[in-house]
């Protein structure tokens, strides 16, 4: 059927890019496509209307007609307007001057409040805070229980004086929790409330009472990224009914494009502070409007990728690696290490999805078998240390032995060795400051989406850190991240077993 928002916009802009001059009719045709794409991405109708009007006004103005490349200018405008709606600049969680900081979570049933409470607590704890989770969802069967388990996993205390399942008063529990937190000197209190419908007056009243009782510094509205047009009603109801200060977007690891994020940010005018991207306690990150807009426009989320790489890679190790790459001492052993480090960053699929142009290779991504990496690992592990260091010694009989040892065919061993040699060559180029064939890396706005012409051009890396260690990590990240993308697009072999 239809692709998602970024696929659609890329398709639309493809036509636009080929034109030197834009007529009002061109702009209207484009806006129709954008409208449709946004609606299919679940952006609420009234927000779509506001958005397309704003884009149209600007697109018809001087800035476009005077621009050297009008089409690129429209793309720029769409991008800017998206960022504007998504909350402009990123805002940080506001902490109280006088602890404890009180954070209240609110949202519909099943939005992911309890899971999020755990993630937020873990994140705050990692920042040196001492969070306390408060079980104020006394409605849903065993919500209290769930929060206790989540708290235990996060290594955070849970305040749960009531068993829940319809028993106990959430307002009282919340009030007591603040007292408890002051006594025991917790620095942050996170109040998990029951899921409620915006039209449920009684429950909304209860949420107001909780809010009154705890006087929160932040009331975070937890929003399911899969939400449809109803996002507008829900956002209004919670904004008017409880008064929210920020939004958290959950289930962003699904394939919903998250148009609801646009709707809610636009309707409430409140920033999106965090996004949650998986079921693990660490699948949680600050929300960056500009990155989300880039993601929507299919420009890739390179910044997040680099950050994740830095988190997973030891900086010293990265330095050594960069050194090795430059001096041609990169071996299959390092290759194996690399693969294991990549693993630490989470699934390859989710990483690849952040690369520019990923929208177009989404199908390939979906078919990608993570077990392919297991097989590659098995092959390398079946080699002797000498073979790993000097793949040149691999003759026929050695290859046969390795194939038998790892349960694959000799052909697969051959193809791994070939891919390794290619990869090593490519990485050498990167390490020496050149750029490998990297389709889809954005230079300005014009080349996103992996344009064919961009492939042969040499481009500057996207960012260079002043800190040498950081720069090495970034370079390594680029080398690692780049390889699978270029290979699956060109269809040649792959360094990481992406041969399909």
């Amino acid at each position: 059927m239809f692709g998602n928002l970024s696929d659609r916009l890329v398709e639309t802009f493809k036509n636009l890019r080929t034109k030197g001059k834009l007529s009002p009719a061109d702009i209207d045709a484009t806006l129709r496509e954008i409208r449709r794409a946004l609606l299919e991405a679940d952006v609420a109708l009234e927000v779509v209307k506001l958005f397309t009007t704003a884009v149209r006004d600007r697109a018809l103005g001087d800035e476009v007609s005077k621009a050297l490349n009008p089409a690129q200018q429209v793309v720029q405008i769409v991008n800017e307007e998206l960022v504007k709606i998504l909350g402009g600049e990123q805002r940080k969680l506001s902490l109280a001057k006088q602890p404890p900081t009180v954070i209240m979570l609110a949202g519909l049933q099943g939005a992911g409040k309890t899971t999020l409470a755990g993630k937020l607590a873990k994140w705050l704890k990692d920042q040196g805070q001492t969070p306390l989770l408060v079980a104020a969802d006394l409605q849903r069967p065993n919500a209290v229980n769930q929060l206790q388990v989540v708290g235990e996993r996060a290594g955070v205390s849970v305040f749960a004086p009531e068993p829940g399942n319809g028993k106990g008063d959430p307002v009282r529990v919340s009030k007591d929790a603040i007292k408890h937190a002051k006594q025991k000197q917790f620095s942050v209190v996170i109040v998990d409330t029951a899921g409620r419908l915006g039209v449920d007056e009684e429950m909304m009243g209860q949420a107001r009472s909780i809010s009154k009782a705890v006087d929160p510094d932040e009331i975070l509205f937890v929003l399911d990224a899969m939400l449809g047009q109803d996002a507008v009603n829900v956002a209004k109801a919670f904004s008017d009914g409880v008064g929210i200060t920020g939004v958290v977007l959950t289930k962003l690891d699904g394939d919903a494009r998250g148009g609801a994020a646009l709707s809610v940010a636009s309707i409430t005018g409140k920033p999106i502070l965090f996004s949650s991207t998986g079921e693990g306690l660490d699948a949680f990150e600050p929300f960056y409007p500009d990155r989300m807009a880039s993601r929507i426009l299919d420009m890739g989320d390179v910044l997040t990728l680099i950050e994740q790489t830095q988190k997973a890679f030891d900086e010293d190790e990265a330095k050594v690696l960069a050194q090795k790459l430059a001096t041609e001492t990169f071996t299959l052993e390092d290759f194996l290490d690399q693969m294991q480090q990549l693993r630490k960053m989470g699934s390859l699929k989710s990483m690849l999805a952040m690369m520019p142009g990923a929208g177009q290779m989404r199908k390939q991504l979906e078919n990608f078998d993570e077990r392919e990496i297991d097989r590659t690992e098995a092959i390398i592990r079946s080699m002797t240390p000498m073979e790993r260091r000097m793949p040149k010694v691999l003759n026929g009989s050695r290859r046969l032995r390795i194939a038998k040892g790892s349960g694959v065919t000799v052909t697969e061993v051959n193809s791994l060795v070939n891919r390794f040699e290619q990869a090593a060559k490519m990485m050498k180029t990167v390490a020496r400051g050149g750029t490998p064939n990297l389709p889809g890396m954005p230079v300005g706005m014009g080349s996103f989406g992996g344009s064919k012409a961009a492939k042969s051009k040499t481009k500057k890396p996207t960012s260079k850190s002043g800190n040498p260690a950081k720069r090495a990590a970034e370079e390594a990240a680029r080398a690692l991240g780049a390889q699978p993308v270029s290979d699956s697009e060109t269809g040649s072999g792959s360094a990481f077993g992406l041969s399909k």
Partner: protein
Amino acid sequence: MAGLLFWKKKQPAEGASGPGVESTANQPAAQATLDGTVERVESEAVQLPRRNLARGVRSLFSKVKFNPDNLDDLEDILIQGDFGVLAAGNIVFEVKKRAKLTAAATEAELKQILVDVLVEAMDHPDKSLNLDGSKFPYVFLVVGVNGVGKTTTIGKLARWLTDGEWNVVIGAADTFRAAAVDQIATWAERAGAKLVRPKTEGQDPASVAFEAVEMAVQTNADIVIIDTAGRLQNKADLMDELSKIRRVVEKQTAITEVLLVLDATTGQNGLVQAKAFADSANVTGIVLTKLDGTARGGIVYTIQQELGIPVKLVGVGEGINDFAFFDAQEFARGLVS
């Protein structure tokens, strides 16, 4: 209609004495045992209490006056009900065509046309649950993404069946989410159903499902309902896990019904969900939950058009009785009223 008739296993000792039991038309049914022989099982028709869509669906068109000139406006309103751009366009096209043909001019006539168009598209011959007495125990598998209301739905279904004196076993195969087993245990207790728990934390869900069916066979239960962990449809390994649960259960007996639970607030991603779950779990029906909010769940229209999967049940609240059988007429009238 006072109630709905379904076939359950005849309990030889009790006979037909329980409340809600209306007729005892003995319907012999064939049941294959594990060694392959076919055993005749006595079944009886049982009346189950009817659950009502008490509050109904909120009207989507309350703010608009229908007249032959503003029919294009309906498109935007349908889009706001999550019908999607394509479906909304098609519906309005059809309504305009018929309005022209019949020269409909009054608001009532035009509304009736819209209702007809919706009902024709959404009425499905297989809208009831498959409880037709061919095989015991019936096996229901309940699947869906995270947070749509799978566990709550199972609680409601189980209570409804035990109200009709059915012998219900629930398999707690959501071994992933924190405290999910406790949550379903609370519902099982409220509903008076037996529960098969995982023996260890994080046990393979397929083995829990297997044990639940095994227990149902041993204890002569009528039906086993298997709860599964919520999973996002783009996670291939989790979707494979569902296929595995299916395969493992089918080693013992056929699966009667695979219910995909869909949150009415879900937008266009609902279709993607339905496709993915249909592929790996063979979905036979949809449960549309949280219809008591402001969302209308228009995506089910497209799902039925594209995939032919009917909506069977709707959830309208957190109470144990808050569900109803889906009725296209009722749904369309509610929307258009």
